[in-house]
């Protein structure tokens, strides 16, 4: 009986949490007349052509977002792994100061840097290019990634690296052949978090891109929402399509997601 009460409470909470997404899917199958008559329950006939319309609207931006998110995630992890290896394994003159220079950035809010960053991107000729977003995303995530990865690499058995040194294995190969496979679990976790972050990034594309056909998914959805005469079904279909890639990714590596999102706690 007590179990029943717990399930009841949790289900009520979940119903409320999932209600927006339920409505999103229900409305995505209606035309405007059905929407006006009853937006809450599914009504026949289903208008699957809304999804064609929605896909037309978001296709380009989804492909752009996938490109930016994947490139910047791979780049961030690769660079941060090298940096973390350096800070975990070597003690050099000025090393602590360098490490401090990375950690200090954790304190500086990106929003405070918005204006000068925009000018810098312009000066580098990267305005309206996806590379501006990729480079900003990589640079912006280095501090946190190096902080986490350094702790992790420092725990790896150092005999492995000592032996590699004796055998004359160059440092970059040590990172690639030894450190990379051993840190695969934590890299997976960090990669998932990074992709979610990039998928949700909204400010940089808003500032750094001008052409609508280069735009990423977040800003594109805002444009769609701003249209005066709304095709509600098509709009909601667009929202659904925009949510699908991460959800598909989620079902493929559910364990990784659950771990990624719970792990922060264990570390704390």
């Amino acid at each position, binding site marked *: 009986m007590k179990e029943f009460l717990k399930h009841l409470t949790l289900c009520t909470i979940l119903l409320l949490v999932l209600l927006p997404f339920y409505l999103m899917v229900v409305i995505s199958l209606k035309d405007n007349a059905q929407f006006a008559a009853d937006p809450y329950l599914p009504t026949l006939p289903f208008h699957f052509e809304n999804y064609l319309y929605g896909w037309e609207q978001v296709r380009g931006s989804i492909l752009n977002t996938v490109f930016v998110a994947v490139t910047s995630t791979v780049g961030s992890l690769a660079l941060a792994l090298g940096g973390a290896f350096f800070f975990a394994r070597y003690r050099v003159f000025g090393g602590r100061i360098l490490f401090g*220079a990375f950690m200090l*950035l954790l304190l500086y809010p990106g929003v405070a840097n918005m204006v000068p960053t925009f000018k810098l991107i312009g000066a580098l000729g990267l305005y309206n290019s996806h590379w501006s977003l990729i480079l900003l995303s990589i*640079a912006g995530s280095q501090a946190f990634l190096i902080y986490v990865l350094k702790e992790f690499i420092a725990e790896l058995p150092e005999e492995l690296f000592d032996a590699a040194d004796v055998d004359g294995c160059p440092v970059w190969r040590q990172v690639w052949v030894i450190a990379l496979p051993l840190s695969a679990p934590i890299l997976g976790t960090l990669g998932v978090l990074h992709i979610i972050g990039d998928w949700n990034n909204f400010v940089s594309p808003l500032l750094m891109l001008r052409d609508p056909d280069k735009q990423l998914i977040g800003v594109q*959805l805002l444009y769609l929402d701003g249209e005066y005469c709304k095709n509600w079904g098509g709009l909601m279909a667009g929202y659904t399509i925009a*949510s699908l890639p991460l*959800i598909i990714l989620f079902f493929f590596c559910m364990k990784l997601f659950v771990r990624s*999102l719970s792990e922060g*706690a264990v570390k*704390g």
Partner: protein
Amino acid sequence: MPVEIPLRKIPHYWNVYLLAATPLLLIVLFNYYPIYNGIVHIFYRWDGDQLEEFIGFGNIVRLLHDRTLLHSFGVVLLFVAANLIKMIPAIFAAVILHHLLNRQWQYLYRICFILPMIVPSVVKILLWKYFYEPNSGLFNAVLRGLGAIGPEESVAFLSDPKLLLPSLIFQDFPWVGAFGVLIYLAGLQNISREIYESARLDGAGPWRIFYHIELPLITTQIRINFALMIISTIRGWENVYLFVGEGGGPESVAAVPGLLIFREAFSRGYFGYGCAIGFVIFIVTLLATALNNKFVRVKR
């Protein structure tokens, strides 16, 4: 033990340095240089283009007289207070989830809680924007259905200056962010069985166990979440922008500091002043972090 590289041998180890040099180059170029450039331009009238004129403390004087800016930090304070209350449901959800006897059910619920977190935040906000919509929005339909307003009337949640802030705060009801739930759950699962057993032997009921055992043992997690919440509330402006655009709603009631930077710099062309507001946000973040470390210290 890490490998020591003595000073005179550094040239020999140049390839080791390359590992740190690449990320370092990126943060110097894309983080440190803009910080420096931003601080310099606090003292300039700058339109982001040709005009770049030294005006000394002009922007700072303007900061001190800017009532909108003062108001924006008031809004931040209100949001922090509201977000503090909005932290509570996640704690309760985690405790109930923790007490489920059946592990499989627990895993299933966990996945259901994660799902909304995977949906892009822009989609979530735009869906809530639709809920608040005056004509076909969910809340107006419910109010009409209950007879609270006439069939032709509507409540303008997002364009009434009195309703905008409450609407923004209510957003995302029932406020069980999955991140919080998962963090608390992980904390609760670290509590050992013996503690529960001895508490039950002493005759403690579920409420007393919650209040005297579970709550104290997840304070670390609550404090971490609290600190993260404050910092992100000070920095955040995307939500407000998505709901009401760069104007910050009627009479700018919901204009938060980040939104003001965006408006001043990118719509009105006061880049120097935008930099100045940015610096104020940085100082406030530092103060909040310092206060946090002092008063809500995370015990290790």
